[in-house]
């Protein structure tokens, strides 16, 4: 699937990324590319072009390949995401328990389709195939996509996505109340 890109790239602050790369303190090889992109995605909530260029320069991997790898994996996005990412599981187990209706309800309430972000950059709606909590389907996970606070200063601890909140056995009727919890924060 083709990924959306930004028409106009904003300027971004790259200090933390530079510091992180320096902190790795080893000779960079191609094996570092994906972990660096993951760090960038986690810090900025997306992959700014300037960050990819920096990675390309530091790893000596041509920009075309950096872009090729980034566009291949679904984890990476070239456009900023909302403050909260809503992941609706449409894996098999959730599917047979009616996750489509849940998704439809969220879409309706937020006025966006999946893969899109609301105009106020509060919510991004994503569909995912299985979050590994199938026993409790349908599953909705809401998390803060921008984790810069927790990871830019220090080394990237693996606790990143733990801020995500899992909601199990979600029905279309429950959606409004759940979303309400994130409307103000």
């Amino acid at each position, binding site marked *: *699937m083709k990924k959306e890109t930004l028409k106009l790239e904003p300027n971004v602050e790259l200090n933390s990324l530079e510091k992180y790369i320096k902190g790795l303190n080893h000779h960079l*090889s*191609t*094996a*570092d*590319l*994906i*972990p660096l*992109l*993951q760090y960038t995605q986690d810090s900025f909530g997306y992959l700014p072009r300037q960050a990819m260029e920096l990675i390309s320069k530091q790893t000596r*991997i041509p920009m075309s390949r950096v872009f*090729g*790898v980034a566009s*291949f*994996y*679904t*984890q*990476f996005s070239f456009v900023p995401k909302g403050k909260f990412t809503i992941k609706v599981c*449409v*894996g*098999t*187990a959730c*599917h*047979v*328990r009616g996750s*489509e*209706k849940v998704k*439809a309800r969220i879409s309706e309430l937020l006025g966006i389709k999946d893969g899109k972000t609301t105009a106020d950059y509060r919510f991004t709606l994503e569909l*995912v*195939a*299985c*979050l*590994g*909590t*199938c*026993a*409790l*389907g349908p*599953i909705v996970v809401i998390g803060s996509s921008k984790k810069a606070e927790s990871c830019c200063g220090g080394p990237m601890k*693996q*606790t*990143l*996505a*733990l801020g*995500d909140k*899992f*909601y*199990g056995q979600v029905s279309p009727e429950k959606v409004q109340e759940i979303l309400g919890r994130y409307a103000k924060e």
Partner: protein
Amino acid sequence: MGRLNSIQDLRTLREKLKKEQENGRPTVVVCGGTGCDTFGGHAIYEALSNVIKDKGLEGKVSLKKTGCQGFCERGPLVNLWPGNIFYQKVREKDASKIIDETVLKGKVIENLLCPDPQTGKPVHIQAEVPFYKKQLRLVLRFNGIVDPTRIDDYIAVGGYSSLEKVFENMSPEQVIKEVADSGLRGRGGAGFPTGKKWEFVRKATGDIKYIICNGDEGDPGAFMDRSVLEGNPHQVLEGMIVGAYAMGCRKGYFYVRAEYPMAVEHVQKAIDQARELGLLGQDILGRGLDLDLEIKKGAGAFVCGEETALIASIEGKRGMPRIRPPYPAISGLWGKPTCINNVETLANIPIIIEKGAKWYSSIGTQGSKGTKVFALAGNVRNTGLVEVPMGTTLREIIFDIGGGIAKGRKFKAAQIGGPSGGCVPEEHLDTPIDYESLQKVGAIMGSGGLIVIDDKTSMVEIARYFMNFVQDESCGKCVPCRIGTRRMLEILNRFLQGEGKESDLDLLLELAANTRETSLCGLGQTAPNPVLSTIRYFRHEYETLLKKPTPEAAKAETVESKEKVKEGIEAG
């Protein structure tokens, strides 16, 4: 605690830890799996911890959090020792009662017990709950007993003792022979004999060899590997160390899905703790074996579960498979001999070494030995994680353990093996679960996802669902998979829109056969399976959709699926 320099050091440490744990203190165990956490498991842990503090019971009552205990449907779960009293659907407000009544006075709180579905009577002990009764828990033996974030817990229950046996009494060749004799076959899907794979890697020449644990678990509807990595990562680590010894690997990777943050965290902790104790690193237990492990987080691509694609991904490339041979055992990561094993495969190794090949191979059927963990989900009453001996029938899993179909509906099919698997109808429910029998009825063992489908679900819609999934996940490298899956999806969409043609069924079968035979990797080769098995057993549902709007057709083709088709077309 310092570094362990010899096998004796490890034994001494275990004895010491065992003594510490056998203090007779009552223990409250809260399930910390993601499932129970979703229902507030963590809050209950906190509440219990507060009650213990408030009542000045610290040091008198132990509290711990374990990995997934499997019965996610009934979460959050709380276990009390001694006695193995099993509470389910516990709420925060129950915390003080549990401590006051059960822990201090030994009184059981009836309404927190799990009712027997047949008699309605509450069941006191976990092992007696019907959901657990028919299971044989080997891989999951310590899920629910050890705190996965503490290596001490694992060592105390006998963890890492297979290293003692291997280092003291077995040559690498003997280890491989033991694994081969056990009959263990890969749990990642293909069922390749593990002993044979290890032998290939051992015999391959290379200055360095790698061992990789495949924890990508991309099949939607599967969560076995997740629960093992989250609930007892040390058992997998132990299996990898034994493998590294047998094959001569010096470096290893854990490839874990990014969607599993808790698994990543627990594995990282396990690696750090093992390294600190000298169970990883240089000269392990003074035996001259060097091994270091590192985590690689997946970046969200189903195809990266395929071994050659996984290797490409670790190398920092687009995760696309390549033609085999050469197999990774000969030329894998960075062109070096590489052993790739599934999480569950590796978790079986310590058990085989400890109990012996003979014991292990007495479990299961002729061609499939040991147990298999299944992720039971969908329209079934007791969803969760289930481990049974090979040869158990689907009916036993779904009806005896799973408690039958939810909401009083009827069973229609069991989808087994994920997007590469098939749908098994009622008439084959007595199929014993083993690699060959499942293949005969058009499904595969796969990694162990088992999704129960009830009678309100359209099978054509299920076929479309999987085709949409593989079409989306096809990496696009080979033509048959890229285009074949797309065309099949279009035809299935046509069916569901009521625009199918008579000739479409044959066309679908022809496309399926071609895609199966000519695709590059397992993804394309097995992609037609859901279509083939639904046509085989539920052809009438396709045919009903062909007839112009009869009442049934209109019913099968619900408004819902129509909408989905439209969306699918727009998104595609």
